[in-house]
C-alpha cells in the first residue's frame, strides 16, 4: 500500500503549551483514516498540520517532519498554496461562502486561474453529482448557498473541495452538526470517495469510525496511543487505554 503522509516525530506548541507530542504515523493512499480520542487531545490540531492550516494560528510552532511525495511539507521548499490545492479540507461547521452554489464550487478552480465557462460548468456538475447534491439543487445553482440546509451545506463544502480534485480530503468532525440522515449520506460519500481520494476524518462517533475507516488512530493528551487497522483497534486493542475509551469506560 502506498504511503500518502509519513509523519515523523511531530511536536506542536501553541506558544509555551505543547499540544502534540512526538506523533508518528503513516497515512495510506485511498484509505479512510479515522482519528478518535477525547476532547482536547489534539485531533484537530494534528489534522490541521497535514495541510498547514496551523500556520494561520499566531504562536503555533511545529517541529518534526511530514513527508508527502518525498518532500517534507514543512520544509521551506514547500509551496503552501500548492499543498492546500492537493490536500483539501472540510470543516466541522459547514462554511459555504455567501455566494451562489455555483460560485462556491467554482471558487477553487477560479482561484487557480481557470476561466473557461464550459470547463467550470463541467466541474460544478460532476462535483455536485459526486456528493449526491446535484438532484437537489440543479435548478437553483444561481441561488445563495446560505439558503441550503446544514446537511446540504456540508455536502456542498465537500463538493467545493472535490472540485479542486485534491489527492487528500481532510475532514474535521464533518457530521457533528448534522442529523442522522445527512450523516449517513456523508458516510456513504466517504466510502464512495475513497476510490479516488485519500480521506482523513476526525470523529467522536465510534460507530462512524468503525463503519467507514480502514485505519484508526487513538489520540490521548497530544500523543498517539495506538494506530492500527480499524478492525484490530475495535476488536483487539493492544493498549488498555484504547480499550477503555472505545468501550466507553473513559473520557
Amino acid at each position, binding site marked *: 500500500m502506498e504511503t500518502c503522509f509519513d509523519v515523523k516525530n511531530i511536536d506542536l506548541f501553541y506558544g509555551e503549551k505543547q499540544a502534540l507530542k512526538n506523533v508518528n504515523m503513516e497515512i495510506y493512499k485511498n484509505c479512510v483514516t479515522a482519528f478518535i480520542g477525547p476532547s482536547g487531545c489534539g485531533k484537530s490540531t494534528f489534522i490541521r498540520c497535514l495541510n498547514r492550516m496551523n500556520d494561520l494560528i499566531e504562536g503555533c510552532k511545529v517541529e518534526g517532519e511530514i513527508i508527502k511525495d518525498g518532500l517534507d511539507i514543512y520544509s521551506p521548499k514547500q509551496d503552501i498554496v500548492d499543498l492546500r490545492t492537493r490536500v483539501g479540507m472540510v470543516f466541522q461547521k459547514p462554511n459555504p461562502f455567501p455566494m451562489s452554489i455555483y460560485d462556491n464550487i467554482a471558487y*477553487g478552480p477560479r482561484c487557480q486561474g481557470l476561466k473557461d465557462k464550459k470547463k467550470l460548468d463541467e466541474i460544478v456538475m460532476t462535483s455536485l453529482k459526486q456528493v449526491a447534491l446535484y438532484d437537489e439543487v440543479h435548478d437553483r445553482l444561481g441561488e445563495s448557498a446560505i439558503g441550503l440546509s446544514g446537511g446540504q451545506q456540508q455536502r456542498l463544502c465537500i463538493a467545493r473541495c472535490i472540485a479542486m480534485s485534491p489527492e487528500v480530503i481532510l475532514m474535521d468532525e464533518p457530521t457533528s452538526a448534522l442529523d442522522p440522515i445527512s450523516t449517513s449520506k456523508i458516510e456513504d460519500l466517504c466510502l464512495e470517495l475513497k476510490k479516488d481520494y485519500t480521506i482523513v476524518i476526525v470523529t467522536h462517533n465510534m460507530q462512524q469510525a468503525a463503519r467507514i475507516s480502514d485505519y484508526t488512530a487513538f489520540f490521548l493528551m497530544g500523543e498517539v496511543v495506538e494506530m492500527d487497522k480499524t478492525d484490530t483497534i475495535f476488536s483487539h486493542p493492544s493498549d488498555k487505554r484504547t480499550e477503555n475509551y472505545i468501550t466507553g469506560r473513559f473520557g
Partner: protein
Amino acid sequence: MNRLVKDNILKGITYVASALSVIVLAAILWYLVSNGLSLISGDLITGDYYATTENAAISPDYSYTEMETQEYSGKGYYSKKWGIALEDITTAHNDEEISVVYVDPNSPFTHMNSLVAGEDGMELSLSSGSAVQNIYYEDQNGETVFLSRVQMKDAENTIKTLEEAEGIVSINYESIGGGIRGSIFATLYLILISLLISLPIGIASAIYLHEYATKNKINSLIRQGIDTLTGVPSIVYGLMGVTVLFPVTQLVGATSTSILLGGLTLAIMLLPTIIRSTEEALIVVPKSLRDGSLSLGATKSQTIFKVVLPCAVNGILTGVLLGIGRVIGESAALVYTTSTVISDNPSILSQGTSLSLMIWSIMSGEQPNYELASAISLIILVIVFAINIIVKIIGKRLAKSFV
C-alpha cells in the same frame, strides 16, 4: 413591590429621554420648515447667488406697429401694450422687488441692446425672474421720463404708469440672485474628491492593519495614531491643509485656496473614520470563511478580495455614509482651505463654499438671513437623505452581485 416601582421609574426615564430627543428634533425641523420652506424653489436651487445688473435700450429696429402682443392671464399685473407682466416678490436676500413674471415674445423688452460699456450693443432679452430697477420711457409729449425704483412703488403702479407711456427707451434690471447652485456643486465636488482619495487608501490601510500586520510595536503605534486622529478637531485639519497640502495643489495649478485643497484636507480627515469602520467590518467576517478559502488553495490576497471584502461591503458603506455626513457638515476645516467665498460656477481649482459654509457666510453678514439659511438647511437635509438612500441601494446591489 419595591422592585416593580424601581423598574417603572427606569422605564419612565427612558421614555422621557427618547420623547425629549424626538421633540427637540421635531422642533428644529419645524423651525426650518416654517422659515425656509417658502423660499425653496427651482430658482433657488439652480440660480446664481450673485445678482447681475443689465442696462439695455430698446433696439432701433423694433417697430411698435408691426409687432402684435398677445393677451396674458397668468399671475401678476399685465400690460398688453408692452407685453410684460410684473409682480411683487420678496427675494432670498430679503429684499422687496418687482419681478418680471411674463414677457411676450413680441414685446419691445425682447428686442434690446445692452448699454453696458464693453458689451457693444449685445442683443438682450428681458426674461422672467428678473427684478426691474428703473425704466426710461417717453410720455405723450415725446419727452423721456425717468421712472426710478422708488417711483415705481409696486408692480400694479408700474404697469399703470407704463400703460400711459408712448414708448419705452431703456430699462435697468437685475437677476434675482440668492441661488445656491454653485454651493451645491462645490459640496458634491468635495464629497467626490474626499471619497475618491480616502476610500481606497482607507480600505487598503484597514486591510493591512487587520489582515497582514503582525502584533508589534510599530503597528500598535500606527493604530494608536489613527485612533488619536479621530479626535483631532477639524480646524486643526484645516490648518494642516493650508500649510502642508497647499503646495501639493499648487503642483496641479491652484493659485489660491481651492475646492481641491478642501477635498484633500477632508480626505485626510475622513481617513481614520474609513479605516475604523472598514476594520470593524473586517473583524466580523467569520474566520471560518477565511479558513475555507485558504484551504481551497486560494492565496491570501484572493481570500481578501473575493471573500472577505465582499462580506464587509455593508460595514464599509456605513463608513462611507459617516464620511459623507462629515463632509457635508464640515465647516471649520474648510474655512481656510476652500475659502468662504460663495462661488456661482465653482471648479475644482477655484474657490467656493460648501452649503454648510454658505450658511455660515450668510449668517455672519451684517444682516443675518434666517430664511435663506433655513432653506439651505432644508436642502442639506434632503441631500443627506438622498445620499443615504443611494448608498443603501448601492450596498444592496453589491451584496446581490456577490450572492
